[in-house]
Every structure is written in structure tokens, then in C-alpha cells.
């Protein structure tokens, strides 16, 4: 008979801990009420930090829950990244939530639940566990997008995200059902072992639908339509959360699905990824130029960044996946830092979101201006900032895989996107100053200092970090 020992519960320590912590904090939150939101939020951050420690310490490796769950170096890398990003997002949401009157204890808990969902996605080793993890994450994200329920914009963002997210889940499930129908298994291990060489038409249609569903979650073109509206409408710290942690989880899941079970069908899915990568890079570069709202601009920027990260996946090699991991790690830090600056854009207690509001920031708040300038230079891919290395590794992998056209288009898109990144710097340093922003709150200041430090001096610790990414990527390719 089956027993608990067969389940290998130990491999899922971070997830089990997070689930128990979320449930316990929910009970505490209900009994204490909304006045203690700050306590619940810091406890959630602590839970995420402990989960990181649990994930790193005593490296878990193997299958759990009857092969539905996998723990390996790749999963560990992605988990640490998304837990960290989620913890930073919860910290950043603290002051904002209190000032905007959305400080409810459920907010950090829903973010914690979403993070748990991400962790389950990253460790999915079966199409069904992929889906339940994705759904746990998405459902929590729909709710937090609409958490400022008294404003039309936030509710609209939540509703839009929900309707389109449900559609993408439907596509993903349809693709999964086709894959199951044509192969007879949902397990990644079984699929990887049986799918060698030629694939039938039905299976390919299934893979296409699966890719479409996942492309939706990482907001890659042509499934990006929801992104600008949701990013603009959702409260800013929530947007910061959306832009970082879920992207890491979804894109690593994407890599695991394509390289793992469908690794031998690389010829079939490579063209799909090349297409969505090129389309995302170009749209991210071109559509952002006309934006006046900085949150919308960041939405297009995130679409472009996903395109760059997918260049690594498109190459279908170990170097490519390693580049993807490096790119996502750097992207998470850059984007979190940028949103910390956006959160600091408040005038007389009111949040402002227009790019023109940044005019002359270098004179009124030079620290903030320099921080944003560093993030923008890094996003544009200018050395020695970290963003350059991310782009370097994905393009290098593409050229090594013989995808020269993809790499050239990527570099060109990068040049175009440099225009709007550097325009922000121009607005801050050379335009006539407007009224200064309010003082930056201490928590935001800490996040800003930490992210600036990583982005500008990260190259010192470069080599061990790159080795770590390469090691994580090699797990997927080990047979």
C-alpha cells in the first residue's frame, strides 16, 4: 500500500512550509483584523525568506508525490528568484497600501498564495500539476489586480486579467488534453522517454496550444493585449509584483516543458518560440515609444524583455537556457528597482504616473534620478550595468545555435528600445524641473539601494552567478 514515505514530502519543504505559513497567517489575520496588516505582511516576508533558506539548504533532488512534483537545481534557482521578487513586492506594497486605503491583511496573503502557486509551477513534472500550480497563481493574481475595488481602473484591470486569463487557461487545457490524447500520458518523465524523433500532427497542435497558453502568462506577442491595461490599472506595487515573480515562474515553466518532455521535438517548437520572441522584441521596442504613462511604458518594456529572454529558449541549447536564467534574474532586479522609483513618484500624497512628472528630477531628488538612470541604462543594455550581461548571454547562445537572424533582430530591437529608456533619462536630467516629489519612505529607500547596488556592481560577483545559472540549466539537459 501507499504510505507517506512514498510521497517524498521532504522534497517539497519550501512549498509545504509556505502553504502552512499562509494558512496560519490567514487565521491570525482574521482574528486580528485589518489594523495589523503590517504585522501580517512582515510575517509573509519572513515566511518567504525561510522558504528561500529551505530551498537552498540541503539541496533536494528528485521526484515527489508519485512523480507529479520535481525538485532539482533548476527549480531551486527559479524558486529563490521568485520568492525574493515576491518578498520585495510585499515590502514595497506596505506604505502604498496604507496610504491608498487598501491595507487589508488579505493582500500580502494573496501574494503569498500566488508565490506558492509559482513555486508549484516551477516544480511541475506533470501536465496536471502544471495546471493546478498555474491556476493557484493566476487566481490569486486576478484578485490582487482588483484589490482597489473602489476604483474603476483597478476593477477593470482585474476583470480583464481574469477573462483573458481564463481564456488562456482554456487554451492550455485544450493543448494538454490533445497531448494526453495522442501520447497517453501527462507525466513529463513518461513524455520525455517516449517522444523521440517524429511527432504526429495531433501532438504538434497540442504543443502549439500549450505554448499559446503559456505565452499568454508571460505576455509574449501575440498574446500580450492584456498587459498594458492590467499594468496601468492595477495598483503600482501589484504591478511591480506582476512584472517580476510570475514572469520568472512562467518562463522557467515554459523552458521546463519545452526542453523536458518535448526536448526531442526541438525542431517543432523552435520556430514558434523564434516567432513569438521576434514579435515580442519588436512590439516591445516600437509600441513603448509613444507611451506617456510610465506604468504602460513598463508594460511594453516587460513584453520586450520577455522577447529577449525567449531568444535564449529559442536556441534550445543548454547555453540558451542558462542565458534565459541569467536574463530573468537580472530583469527581476531591474524591474523591481524601477517600480520602486515609480512608487516614490508622489506629489503631496498623490501618486503621479506620467513620464513628464519626472522632469528635472536630477535637481530636486538627485538620488532618485540617478537610481532610475542606472535602471534605464541597464534595461537598454549598456555596460557595465547588469542588463548588458543578460542580453550578451542570450544573444551569444542564439548565435552559437546558428540563429543569426534572430540575434540581429534582437540587437536592432534593443537599439530601438534604448531610445525610450534614454528619453526618460533626458527628461530627468535636462528638462525644466517641476514640483519635487514627497520624501521617499524608508522601506522603498532600502529596496532602491539594494537593487541599484546589484545592478551597478553585480558584475563583480558575475562569474560565480553565471556558473550557478549554467549549473541550473544543465539539469534540464541531463539525461
Amino acid at each position, binding site marked *: 500500500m501507499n504510505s507517506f514515505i512514498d510521497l517524498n514530502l521532504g522534497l517539497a519543504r519550501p512549498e509545504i512550509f509556505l502553504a502552512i505559513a499562509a494558512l496560519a497567517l490567514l487565521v491570525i489575520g482574521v482574528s486580528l483584523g485589518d489594523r495589523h496588516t503590517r504585522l501580517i505582511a512582515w510575517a509573509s516576508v519572513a515566511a518567504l525568506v525561510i522558504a528561500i533558506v529551505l530551498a537552498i539548504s540541503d539541496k533536494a533532488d528528485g521526484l515527489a508525490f508519485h512523480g*507529479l*512534483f520535481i525538485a532539482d537545481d533548476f527549480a531551486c534557482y527559479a524558486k529563490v528568484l521568485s520568492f525574493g521578487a515576491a518578498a520585495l513586492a510585499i515590502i514595497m506594497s506596505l506604505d502604498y497600501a496604507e496610504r491608498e486605503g487598501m491595507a487589508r491583511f488579505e*493582500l500580502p496573503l494573496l501574494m503569498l*498564495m500566488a508565490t*506558492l502557486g509559482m513555486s508549484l509551477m516551477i516544480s511541475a513534472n506533470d501536465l*496536471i500539476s502544471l495546471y*493546478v500550480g498555474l491556476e*493557484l497563481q493566476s*487566481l490569486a493574481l486576478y484578485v490582487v489586480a482588483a*484589490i482597489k475595488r473602489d476604483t474603476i481602473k483597478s476593477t477593470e484591470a482585474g476583470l480583464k486579467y481574469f477573462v483573458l486569463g481564463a481564456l488562456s487557461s482554456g487554451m492550455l487545457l485544450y493543448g494538454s488534453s490533445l497531448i494526453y490524447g495522442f501520447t497517453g500520458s501527462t507525466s513529463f518523465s513518461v513524455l520525455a522517454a517516449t517522444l523521440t524523433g517524429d511527432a504526429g500532427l495531433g501532438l504538434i497542435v497540442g504543443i502549439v496550444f500549450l505554448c499559446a497558453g503559456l505565452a499568454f502568462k508571460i505576455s509574449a506577442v501575440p498574446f500580450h493585449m492584456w498587459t498594458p491595461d492590467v499594468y496601468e490599472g492595477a495598483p503600482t506595487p501589484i504591478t511591480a509584483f506582476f512584472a517580476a515573480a510570475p514572469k520568472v515562474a512562467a518562463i522557467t515553466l515554459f523552458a521546463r516543458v519545452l526542453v523536458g518532455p518535448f526536448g526531442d521535438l526541438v525542431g517543432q517548437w523552435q520556430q514558434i518560440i523564434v516567432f513569438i520572441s521576434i514579435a515580442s522584441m519588436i512590439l516591445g521596442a516600437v509600441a513603448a515609444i509613444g507611451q506617456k504613462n510610465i506604468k504602460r511604458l513598463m508594460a511594453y518594456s516587460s513584453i520586450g524583455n520577455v522577447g529577449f529572454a525567449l531568444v535564449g529558449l529559442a536556441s534550445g541549447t543548454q547555453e540558451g537556457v542558462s542565458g534565459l536564467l541569467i536574463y530573468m534574474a537580472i530583469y527581476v532586479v531591474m524591474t523591481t528597482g524601477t517600480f520602486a522609483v515609480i512608487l516614490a513618484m508622489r506629489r503631496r500624497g498623490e501618486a503621479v504616473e506620467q513620464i513628464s512628472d519626472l522632469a528635472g528630477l536630477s535637481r530636486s531628488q538627485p538620488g532618485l534620478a540617478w537610481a532610475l538612470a542606472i535602471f534605464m541604462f541597464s534595461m537598454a543594455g549598456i555596460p557595465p550595468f547588469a542588463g548588458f550581461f543578460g542580453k550578451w548571454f542570450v544573444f551569444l547562445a542564439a548565435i552559437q545555435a546558428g540563429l543569426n537572424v534572430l540575434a540581429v533582430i534582437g540587437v536592432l530591437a534593443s537599439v530601438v528600445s534604448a531610445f525610450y529608456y534614454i528619453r526618460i533619462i533626458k527628461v530627468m536630467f535636462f528638462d525644466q524641473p517641476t514640483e519635487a516629489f514627497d520624501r521617499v519612505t524608508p522601506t522603498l529607500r532600502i529596496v532602491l539601494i539594494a537593487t541599484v547596488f546589484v545592478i551597478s556592481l553585480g558584475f563583480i560577483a558575475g562569474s560565480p552567478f553565471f556558473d550557478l545559472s549554467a549549473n541550473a540549466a544543465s539539469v534540464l539537459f541531463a539525461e
Partner: protein
Amino acid sequence: MIVETIAFYVFAAVAVVSALLVVGNRNPVYSVLFLILTFFNVAGLFVLIGAEFLAMMLVIVYVGAVAVLFLFVVMMLDINFVELRQGFVRYLPIGAVVGVILAAELIFVVGSTALGTATPAAPTPAIAQVTNTEALGNIMYTQYFYLFQVSGLILLVAMMGAIVLTHRERVGVRRQRIADQVDRNRSSVQLTKVKTGDGASGGVK
């Protein structure tokens, strides 16, 4: 055997007739009630083919939750059903095309016995050996224990979401205070004889 055949024809006939009445009825409340009747008869059909778990689920989920939800919608919302029917003739061709395609698909499914030559990875055990409730129970808490737990978390998040997005603290709400109610004694209660048809205030002086 003969009992089963009779049962099948009774269930099938009632299901088809009540399904037609769901669409054809003018009163939406009757439609929902006929829908419930259809569900019960289909559940009966499921029992006949040995899918007792599905039959139970149909009654619990569809009759217990979905149909009741429909009833609430029909009775609470002010929907003009006459207006809803107005485009009927205009949409008839599209509806007919969809119907024909569905019918053709059904004929293909019945006509062809096998879609491919694939052999199933795990053949289903014969119904005689193990009931499907038992079979589901066997894997639900062992092999799919993980998925079962995560589904529970998803439902919890759904519940949290519903509360976060809709619950409002209202001021001046008269809540039931059970302690006060229990605390009342005989002297604070006034018994009056109310005349039929006069309303609650009729007997009070």
C-alpha cells in the same frame, strides 16, 4: 434485463421531453424546473451504465448548485425573456449550421470504432471488479494526493478572493445578538392574539 430496458426508455424519454420543455417553455422558472428534471433523468441513465459516481456528482453539483443558481438568477434579476427571444429567426441559420456540424460529429463518432491504433497506457479495470467510486477514491488520496491538496488551496484562494472583493463593513447594521435573545425572560414577552388577515399590527393595542 427487461427491467433495465424499461428503465432506460423511461429515463431517456423523460429526459428528452423535459429537455425540449426547457427550451420551449415561456415561463423561465418552469424552464429551470424542467432542467432539474432532465438532470435527474440523466443521472438515472448514468446509474444504468454503471457510472454511479458521475450520477451522484450530477445530482449534487448540477441540481444542488448550478440549477439553484439559475433559479436565483431567473427570479432575482429583472430580465425580459420576451426580448431575449426576439432575434430567434435571425440567428436560426447559424444555430442550424452548428446543429448540423454537431450531428455530423456524433455520426462520425458512432460510425468509427477507433480513432487510432494507440494502446492505452493503463487499461481501465472492468466495472464488475471495482466500482468507479472505489477506483476514484483509491487514487484520489494516494497517487493524486498532491493535486487534491492544491485544488483545496485553489478553492481557498477563490473564497478569499470573493470575500476580499465583495465584503464591506457596514455601519448601523442590526445584527442578531444571541446572548440578548437567550437572556430574555417571560415578562419581556408580550403574547397577542392576531386576527387572521389583519397583519402583525392587528392585535396590538
